[in-house]
């Protein structure tokens, strides 16, 4: 920890706890009292407060990681306010009140009309005559016993489940940002699929958080019991704005015997302008524990936004014959920086993992793949296949690959392929000679490049992601 931060942390507490509990926004700064306040505000059980305080203690002893290949000014953690009562987005009465720029973006992305309205903050009852989609959705899930709610609700309504699993995949002291999140998280999603239940539809955060500004420190926990399966979608292609610059989410997945969790993300946080001013810092810890035999954890991500992305959705393959997958497209343009990848930790016998990473860098951006494949002595017969491809658009962007491989037994098999390509002027000329302009050409080349990942996305998500990529790279060539 830096000296300044140490000083700040050790400063006597100036703001009274009592006064702040009355207000909706906590005073800036972080100490044990801030955490007690958050916990009290949320009427949390004692064990959760303890979890938070323990995480905070761990965080105090940790250093902000310096190893990612990203650069940004030092973050002042005492200049952040760690609690604000959930804010309703201002509700608009009709589409006419929506920012035309936002509408143009939706148009380009092909977002369906009702979704556009919801995303733009038009009141749901304006969109749908009587029944709200979200309610219908919830009822359907309840019929099969699936719990899908906010983390705050889960803590109050299903404390035993939350207590049993929270922090079991990502311990509170796992890393600097995970520790911070564990100390101060305010909300997120909770999802529980009971034994033998196949979730009848894709679960989407969109139905849960569309009326609230999503939190700065989100916490998500998904548990699939024996033989259960679920496909979970996070984010959406519409640009997400936030009044907070730093976002540090934690996502934990637990799959028991024969369970299957597929987690898909399309991330389009505000990336800053074309000169690299502004933009979200997205420092996320995501990890899935394939705990049971034959279980499967599959991550698919399309990362397009944020000024800085620092994210390694990982799989701990504990159960014998369990499977881990990571399919990723990361696009950076202008001055964006992304350091993303995965970790596949093989512990169980005959565990298998697949990594397919596609990095696209345009403008002055920097895009790094960082991946670890670790095979423990116990993981006999383990197999991994990794493929990391980078594509450069233009002259000024950078692509980097940092693969780490640690194998501790000789019955396992590892395959690694990597390539770097460039959208060349001559390729674009070839398209142009056949009547196709540069934008359409780039979009076709990029889609070809990302095909293996897009195939993993749910259908409509894939279509939107395709449009999103073209949109993101607009004007980056030619």
């Amino acid at each position, binding site marked *: 920890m830096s000296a300044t931060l140490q000083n700040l942390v050790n400063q006597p507490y100036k703001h009274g706890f009592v006064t702040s509990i009355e207000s909706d926004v906590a005073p800036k700064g972080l100490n044990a009292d801030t955490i007690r306040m958050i916990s009290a505000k949320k009427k949390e059980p004692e064990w959760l407060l303890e979890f938070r305080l323990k995480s905070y203690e761990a965080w105090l002893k940790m250093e902000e990681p310096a190893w990612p290949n990203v650069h940004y000014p030092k973050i002042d953690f005492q200049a952040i306010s760690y609690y604000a009562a959930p804010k309703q987005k201002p509700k608009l009465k009709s589409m006419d009140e929506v920012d035309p720029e936002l509408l143009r973006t939706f148009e380009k992305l092909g977002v369906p009309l009702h979704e556009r309205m919801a995303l733009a903050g038009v009141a749901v009852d304006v969109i749908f005559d009587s029944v709200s989609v979200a309610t219908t959705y919830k009822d359907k899930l309840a019929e099969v016993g699936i719990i899908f709610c906010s983390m705050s609700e889960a803590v109050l309504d299903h404390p035993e489940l939350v207590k049993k699993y929270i922090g079991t995949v990502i311990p509170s002291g796992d890393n600097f940002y995970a520790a911070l999140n564990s100390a101060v998280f305010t909300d997120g999603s909770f999802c529980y699929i009971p034994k033998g239940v196949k979730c009848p539809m894709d679960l989407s955060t969109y139905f849960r958080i569309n009326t609230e500004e999503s939190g700065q420190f989100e916490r998500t926990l998904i548990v699939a019991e024996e033989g259960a399966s679920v496909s979970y979608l996070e984010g959406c292609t519409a640009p997400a704005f936030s009044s907070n610059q730093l976002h540090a989410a934690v996502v934990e997945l637990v799959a028991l015997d024969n369970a299957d969790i597929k987690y898909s993300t399309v991330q389009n946080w505000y990336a800053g302008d074309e000169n690299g001013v502004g933009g979200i810092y997205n420092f996320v810890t995501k990890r899935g524990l394939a705990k049971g035999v034959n279980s499967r954890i599959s991550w698919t991500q399309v990362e397009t936004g944020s000024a800085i992305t620092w994210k390694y959705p990982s799989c701990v393959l504990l159960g014998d014959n369990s499977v881990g997958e990571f399919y990723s497209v990361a696009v950076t343009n202008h001055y964006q920086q992304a350091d993303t990848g995965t970790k596949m930790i093989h512990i169980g016998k005959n565990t298998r993992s697949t990594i397919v990473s596609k990095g696209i860098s345009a403008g002055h951006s920097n895009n790094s793949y960082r991946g670890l494949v670790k095979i423990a002595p116990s993981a006999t017969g383990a197999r991994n296949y990794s493929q990391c491809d980078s594509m450069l658009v233009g002259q000024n962007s950078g692509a980097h690959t940092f693969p780490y491989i640690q194998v501790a037994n000789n019955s396992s098999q590892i395959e690694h392929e990597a390539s770097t*390509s460039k959208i*060349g*002027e*001559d*390729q674009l*000329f*070839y*398209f*142009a*000679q*056949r*009547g*196709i*302009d540069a934008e*359409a050409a780039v979009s*076709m*080349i990029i889609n*070809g*490049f990302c*095909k293996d990942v897009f195939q993993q996305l749910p259908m409509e998500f894939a279509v939107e992601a395709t449009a999103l990529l073209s949109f993101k790279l607009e004007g980056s060539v030619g």
Partner: protein
Amino acid sequence: MIHQDSKVLLEVRGLCATVNGTEILKGLDLTVRSGEIHAIMGPNGSGKSTFSKILAGHSAYEVTGGTVMFQGQNLLDLAPEERARAGVFLAFQYPIEIPGVINSQFLRLTYNTVQTHRGKEELDPLEFDDYVREKMKLLEMSPDFLERSVNEGFSGGEKKRNEILQMAMLDPRLAILDETDSGLDIDALRIVANGVNQLANKDNAIVLVTHYQRLLNYIVPDFVHVMEAGRIIKTGGKELAFELETRGYDWVGVEHKAATRATA
């Protein structure tokens, strides 16, 4: 075929162009009327491909002088994709590979883009599949090529056939075939030439860039031009190709120098 009253399709006057500051084209003149077939021959490095790419609008070349009119329009004002949509087609000497982009999807996009520009209906994937298979038969190409990435891993001859397939699909006004015959085996040469002949009609024109008289046995040109050092220095009928085949290029240059000295 030369028609008395056919319209001028392409008119190039005094074309000069540089690449990275080096002058490559040094005052090139060429007139092409609809219905005609022209052959351009000439030694390596004389600027044939450069000329072809300039007509298609490649940005690496800077036009420093002269004019190019195409169907009464200043071709140099148009972006490369606009030229293509207006009917200028270049079969590349070295078609580039585009990994990851499926040939059938690429072909359909180019076809639909050009059709839309001409105010015609687009084809959906199924209709297009029928259409393109028909065209492939003409060139005796296996439908397997539809599912592969554009030109990726194609043999030299296969790439050339894929070019002519696109020409057949796009039905251009002016087709420039840059050494389409190089790398073709004897059977392929006949098949490709057949394809080209079937596409030639009184409304379009074909410019063949070639080193070999052999191609001209199959596609009979109305004019044969000799290019040297960035200019067309001699123009004749199809018999000129035979003469070049036996005598080489040197004599043309010598003759040209003598002629220019005499006029000076």
